[in-house]
């Protein structure tokens, strides 16, 4: 089968569906190639997101796409806990319904979704991208002016288009997660973040509340942590802190986090995890997926109209000077944390126990918290004095 289109979107997750919706609503012919035979078939996600980002990029969403609203946070350090009230913006999604909703929006805008379609080759010819793929074992040829790579952590679009998107083990979080029943437990309905420099090397563990007293319980460790695998560490944590929680599913996932040299090529735009844009500190990927997809499609639309796709690297500049601006600073903070976690965690947690426990998160600003922390934790003060100049340079460059 042969198809000609303005835009080929590879992958129908939050990023792909958002880009497709935007470009289709601009009047372009859009084809989405989804590898699986169903949208949201293999969700590998803790499902946390903030409402302002959803409202900003997607608009109002059906109530059933939200699994649980966050109003309590627990911070755990080796079994000791600090509790905070945090009524506000955080939600845990039902990613299956959320992704389906985004796909419906894309299709209502006019995009065509091809399920079970695997793209296996990309070639640039006469200012067009020729994609080869398969659908149900039959070969498929798609000719497109623009290709949006929204094919997740295992993205191949970039590599096939000549953008090296590979990362090193140090640039990736290796993650495992279960869905389990936490009824009757402290974690029921609360967002738990757990730190332990040995068990969760370079990363953290989480329990994100879901409907029906369930939770997504998982962890992410640095890819170069060595020692036990993510799944073994998760089993250890579950048997320590979640005894009796009935597990109904097990998944594995990765979060690549790196500032890539390029996230575009002429006519090609990488978005979301395919562009390695997850938040360096939290590992959250849905927010950047939505915002990068919006930016990429806005720029693709303009360039398509002007027939100037050779200028696609405008997207790189716009991202790193706009929404991606904080990425570098957060990556720097993450690396500073990784280098000092053993020295840092005990005094910082002690400070949190004294100053934060039982309070409402709206009572203090992030700046106040940071200042209080730096004043009372000498290690942090030393670190801050070496970090601040570098951070300043990043902010004001």
């Amino acid at each position, binding site marked *: 089968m042969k198809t000609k289109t303005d835009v080929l979107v590879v992958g129908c997750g939050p990023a792909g569906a958002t880009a497709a919706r935007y470009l289709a609503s601009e009047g372009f012919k859009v084809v989405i190639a989804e590898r699986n035979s169903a949208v949201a078939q293999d969700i590998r996600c803790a499902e946390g997101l903030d409402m302002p980002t959803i409202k900003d990029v997607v608009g109002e969403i059906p109530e059933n796409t939200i699994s649980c609203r966050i109003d309590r946070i627990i911070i755990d350090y080796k079994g000791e806990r600090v509790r905070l009230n945090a009524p506000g913006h955080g939600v845990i999604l039902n990613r299956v319904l959320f992704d389906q909703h985004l796909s419906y929006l894309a299709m209502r805008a006019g995009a065509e979704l091809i399920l079970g379609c695997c793209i296996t080759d990309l070639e640039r010819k006469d200012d067009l991208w020729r994609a080869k793929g398969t659908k149900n074992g039959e070969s498929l040829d798609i000719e497109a002016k623009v290709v949006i790579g929204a094919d997740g952590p295992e993205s191949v679009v970039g590599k096939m288009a000549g953008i090296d998107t590979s990362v090193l083990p140090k640039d990736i979080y290796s993650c495992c997660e279960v869905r389990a029943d936490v009824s009757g437990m402290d974690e029921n309905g609360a967002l738990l973040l757990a730190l332990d420099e040995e068990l969760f090397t370079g990363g953290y563990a989480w329990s994100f509340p879901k409907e029906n007293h369930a939770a997504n319980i998982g962890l992410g460790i640095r890819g170069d942590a060595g020692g036990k695998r993510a799944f073994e560490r998760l089993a250890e944590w579950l048997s320590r802190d979640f005894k009796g929680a009935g597990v109904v599913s097990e998944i594995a996932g*990765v979060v690549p986090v790196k500032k890539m040299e390029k996230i575009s090529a002429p006519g090609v735009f990488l978005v979301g995890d395919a562009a390695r844009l997850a938040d360096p500190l939290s590992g959250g990927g849905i927010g950047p997926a939505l915002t990068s997809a919006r930016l990429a499609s806005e720029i693709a639309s303009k360039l398509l109209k002007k027939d100037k796709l050779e200028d696609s690297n405008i997207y790189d500049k716009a991202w790193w000077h706009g929404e991606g601006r904080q990425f570098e600073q957060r990556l720097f903070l993450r690396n500073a944390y990784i280098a000092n976690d053993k020295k840092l965690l005990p005094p910082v947690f002690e400070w949190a126990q004294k100053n934060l426990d039982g309070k409402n998160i709206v009572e203090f600003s992030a700046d106040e918290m940071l200042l209080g922390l730096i004043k009372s934790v000498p290690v942090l003060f030393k670190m801050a004095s070496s970090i601040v100049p570098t951070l300043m340079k990043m902010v004001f460059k």
Partner: protein
Amino acid sequence: MKKILLDHIKCKLCGGCVAVCKPLALVVRTGKVHYSPKKCVACYNCEKICPQGAISIGADDEDKD
């Protein structure tokens, strides 16, 4: 060169091995990770990051290639 060995039962298709593979020796296709030894540069980063421990390094088979 030592090839890698994939354990498809342990593999949960997280795609991590594909993310760290520069030469596209690993890809996910039709619900399975596919390995092309000819493209592999033997960096073994895939073995390091696999959350499931589903990748191991095989015996040296230089003579057979």
